[in-house]
């Protein structure tokens, strides 16, 4: 007996399509973090433009596939992905040069709820490479600056040398309509800024506790303490959004690897309201 309505799979959801690396940006002295600007090869019909917070599956021929968030969207259909070379696939991606063709499928997952932030203060709290998925939110907020109240960006890096997108950080710091706060775990002799955890930057307030949307991305322990700090400043838990990382492989809810409780991070996330993810921060190995 046949089940009702059997349709077939849209190929681009599962099959990598060829995109070419137009340019490579290497951000950290160790070469550990790189950003690719990708354009589709002729004949590829890109799907919907990714929304800030979503991810694509990036594929290296003969090697494998990894989920990577979108760190910028260009005006002419290009997508920027920022990759930290820490696993077998991403290390193989590390030394690729402009002109190389890689595979891409997506976009997948949920987006940051930027529309909910209209008319409100926007607080973004990023830890390490977690700045990358929040970066398109900053771009969008600056492009539509008048739609938002105060824009506060808190960024924590391991050391000054580990900071990514330095040129953009400098540009944001120079603007008087963005409140950029940076801290590092370990300073250097030349470092004149803050040293310490990123939650200290949140503790300084400077946003309307009754009318703020906060988005945070970074290590889980950092997001957990950030959420606590935001709650101490008077935010309601539902005004806080987090971006989760799990072992996303298929990106469409088939492979089972990325579950957190009832949620498939690939399908129901990676961006979640904080109250939905609160048990995952509390229960070990959930």
């Amino acid at each position, binding site marked *: 007996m046949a089940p009702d309505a059997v349709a077939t799979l849209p190929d681009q959801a599962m099959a990598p399509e060829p995109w070419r690396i137009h340019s490579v940006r290497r951000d950290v002295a160790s070469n550990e973090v790189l950003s690719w600007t990708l354009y589709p090869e002729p004949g590829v019909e890109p799907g919907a433009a990714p929304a800030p917070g979503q991810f694509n599956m990036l594929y290296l021929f003969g090697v494998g596939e990894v989920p990577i968030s979108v760190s910028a969207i260009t005006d002419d259909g290009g997508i920027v992905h920022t990759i930290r070379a820490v696993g077998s696939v991403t290390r193989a991606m590390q030394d690729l040069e402009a002109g190389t063709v890689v595979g891409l499928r997506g976009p997948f997952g949920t987006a940051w709820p930027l529309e909910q932030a209209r008319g409100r203060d926007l607080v973004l709290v990023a830890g390490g490479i977690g700045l990358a998925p929040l970066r398109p939110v900053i771009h969008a907020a600056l492009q539509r600056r008048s739609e938002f109240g105060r824009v506060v960006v808190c960024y924590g890096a391991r050391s000054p040398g580990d900071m990514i997108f330095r040129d953009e950080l400098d540009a944001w710091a120079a603007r008087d309509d963005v409140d950029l706060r940076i801290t590092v775990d370990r300073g250097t002799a030349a470092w004149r800024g803050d040293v310490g955890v990123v939650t200290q930057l949140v503790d300084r307030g400077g946003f309307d506790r009754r009318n703020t949307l906060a988005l945070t991305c970074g290590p889980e322990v950092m997001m957990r303490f950030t959420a606590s700090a935001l709650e101490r400043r008077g935010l309601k838990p539902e005004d806080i959004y987090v971006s989760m990382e799990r072992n996303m492989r298929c990106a469409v809810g088939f*492979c089972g690897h990325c579950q957190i409780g009832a949620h498939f991070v690939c399908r129901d996330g990676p961006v979640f309201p904080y109250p939905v993810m609160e048990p995952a921060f509390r229960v070990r190995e959930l």
Partner: protein
Amino acid sequence: MEVIAPQAVDTLIRLLAGEGYEVVGPTRRDGAIVYDRVGGLEDLPVGWTDEQAPGHYRLRERDDDALFGYVVGPHSWKKYLFPPEETLFRLTRQPDGSFVTEPGTSDAPRRAFIGMRACELAAIDVQDRVFLGQAVQDRGYAARRRDLFMVAVSCAEPGGTCFCASMDTGPRAREGFDLALTEVIDATQHFLVAEAGSEAGRAMLDRLDPRPASDAEQAATERVWAEAPEKMGRQMPADAREVLNRAFEHPRWEETAERCLSCSNCTLVCPTCFCSQVEEVPDLEGQRTERVRRWDSCFNQEHSHLVGGPHHESVAARYRQWITHKLATWHDQFGTSGCVGCGRCITWCPVGIDITEEVTAVRRDPEGRG
């Protein structure tokens, strides 16, 4: 109520083969009942039964010639609809550095399944929700599922690890089949009651020489249906979902982990477990490569791989993930339990961990005071 003779099952297999179906059914191999190609009644385990208990499975001869006098073995129909290994895509490098992607060969003959138990029909419904019920559908699963001819058998003698009655999935096959059979055998009679569940099933049944059941045959069949649920070896508490949703930090998981070998047998024999991984299989020249999907298990450490190490590092976390997903969070994801009560995970666990006993233990002591 319509009756067919045991020999009609042989006719059924041959008719289906004649219509171009690859006919698959229970056969006896390596001391177990497994699913494989069947050409006629001679390939079925006629006159055999199975003994099942936690960590225990033995075949033994019956003292009659029942065609379906056993329950489910280590295989499930999952191996045909969601094969253990499947090439999803073949990719070929192009001279300009790009590549082309073609679908992998999809092995999708029209198949007829003979002897599906009610729990197995339920299991296919569960996997349909995973592979056909989400935004993206699985191409290979859809193709293999589409033309299936399904012959169900209502269990007359549930096994020692069966608990489908408490999962409300059996033992009687009620829907989702083309034909359903109930076998009645005793010292004086041997016949099968046949019910059609589709037009194709009706047409096939008409070719099997059916006749109306006598009053005595009807009464005997109804007795089989009424008594089978009482013969279940086990029972799942009805509130398993609520029990597990409150038990994330229950000490029971640590205790179970002391016995659990994390071998993944339970997930491999489970007819609904759907975890898979895709491996890259390149050729030696680096010009062609394949994306090959294989069954995976949440008991493998790599399953929860993250940069900092596996998220489910402890066996306790892996066991909790499996049982909680199966019986609780599956409801949230797919609107049904992920467990159909077939008992395979109990029988084929090398140390005999019993999913019904685990839920019962947590339920009895929700605070974990011991």
